[in-house]
């Protein structure tokens, strides 16, 4: 069973600010969803290899080459706040 405390703990890990109402709602809804998912527990998966990817891909290597990107300003245009050629945020290191 998932508790409101679990929801608060996970919301902090996920960097999500939730309202009291959302916390209550998610506690109930995630509880029901996880309870449904518990049916996986009855399956024996000993000696089964996990699948991370549908096709068995090996690492794909390439040379690390520098390619020019001509639209730097377009990227900066999307910044919520910027200064010169930089994205601006609140102080990170106290």
């Amino acid at each position, binding site marked *: 069973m998932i508790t409101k405390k679990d929801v608060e703990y996970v919301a902090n890990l996920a*960097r*999500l*600010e939730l309202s009291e109402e959302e916390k209550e709602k998610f506690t109930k809804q995630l509880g029901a969803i996880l309870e*449904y998912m518990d049916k996986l527990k009855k399956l024996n998966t000993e000696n*089964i290899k996990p*699948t991370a*990817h549908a096709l068995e891909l090996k690492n794909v290597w390439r040379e690390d080459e520098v390619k020019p990107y001509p639209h730097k300003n377009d990227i900066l245009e999307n910044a919520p706040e910027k200064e010169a050629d930089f994205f601006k945020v*609140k102080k990170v290191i106290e």
Partner: protein
Amino acid sequence: MELYKETAVSFLKKIKNREISAVKLTEYFLDRIKKIDKTLGSFVSVFESDALSSAEKIDSEINSGRELGELAGIPVAIKDNICIRKKPTTCASRILENYVSTYDATVIEKLKKADAIIIGKTNMDEFAMGSSTENSAFKITRNPWNIEYIPGGSSGGSAACVSAGLVPLSIGSDTGGSIRQPASCCGVIGFKPTYGRVSRFGLVAFASSLDQIGPFSKNVEDCALLLKIISGYDSYDSTSVNCPVPDYPSEIKKDIKGIRIGLPEEYFISGIDPEVEKAVLDAVDVFKNQGAEIKKISLPHTEYAVSVYYIIASSEASANLARYDGVKYGYRYNAEHLIDMYKLTRGNGFGPEVKRRIMLGTYSLSSGYYEAYYGKAQKVRTLIKNDFESAFNEVDVILTPTAPTPAFKIGEKIDDPLQMYLSDIFTIPCNLAGLPGISIPCGFSKNGLPIGLQILGKYFDESTILKLAYNYEKSTEWHKKYPEIANL
């Protein structure tokens, strides 16, 4: 016959023979969007002037005798999670409301190279999370067959606009059924290619091991053409696969004698709508009459697929959506401390379903629960994949309903996420295994809502699926029907 009922393939001929200009055709569909989409809500943006100037360019090139691309002058709508340079890509989310893409997705580059007219972007569930398009932060999209009903999701806008004849072709994305389920709800064709067949470069990531881009159309020939154009290896997507792309439009015309069709017993269970079951079994008879061989098969781990999917997809989403932190683009909530900026930006910028999935994914990946949820789900994913691999030793394709019921009412499941998740029960296993699958119209319920037939095929065997769909279409009339709203 009204113009909108013609196929893209027939428009191509007419444009080439100068029976109609690309500008006239584009104006015609823009006009239809203006008239009909205020009721339907399938578009989030329409590129009127850009579309018309692309069309003008094509017309002048026709006049100067240049060899034209394979989709010259055909309007195509794009789901709003695929990047088009200098156009907004919102993913139907507040957090990306003001985001403007800085490059073209590979599928867009291919469409532009084929001289297609990109006419606008379509509504969707926020970040492609949902089965009804009700999770869009901007608007509701309605089912053209009955506007009280959902169009399916997450590519609900792309399905609805093709269904109502607002555009001949559109592009969507499918992570757990997001192309096939809305295609089923709206009575159109929707194809999810094999994972790796179409480049995902420029598709906003939801669940990277499952996402795949694919086409919507009103008929199989158009679907085959659009699929051919968007397919192929791309060095910008290391998960795309370097294998030859067949000429689908000519592949589909071969007959289906001797093809082995599997009917999985786990997909014909109690709980499935009897009208849906009957429509699908009637379709089986059509194939039988065409010389296909029908076999009962079993996919024993089907009942676990929804659980596996919602753990894996949510886990991948929780990682992929970590990038929306208010720093480099999108919405920012200004707060005094950086950590509060992150939390408030994400808390205010994401809608309820996206938050729910981030929570579920973060929980599944968190220390102490990782093995029980994410680790377990990955192992059961192997079992589901193995089910298909052994089934495909016996049969060439698998036939199922696309969804257990026709479209449901707007608002009916929005407060019960688990019930909403269960509407993807028949489309999810295909994504977990990475297989290709199509939904084609195969009937209507008594109250006039479309029913979809799903055909799943072997890895990279899109041709056989399309061939079956084409043969079915030739013997049936479902694809010729249009909702009343299309006649407005």
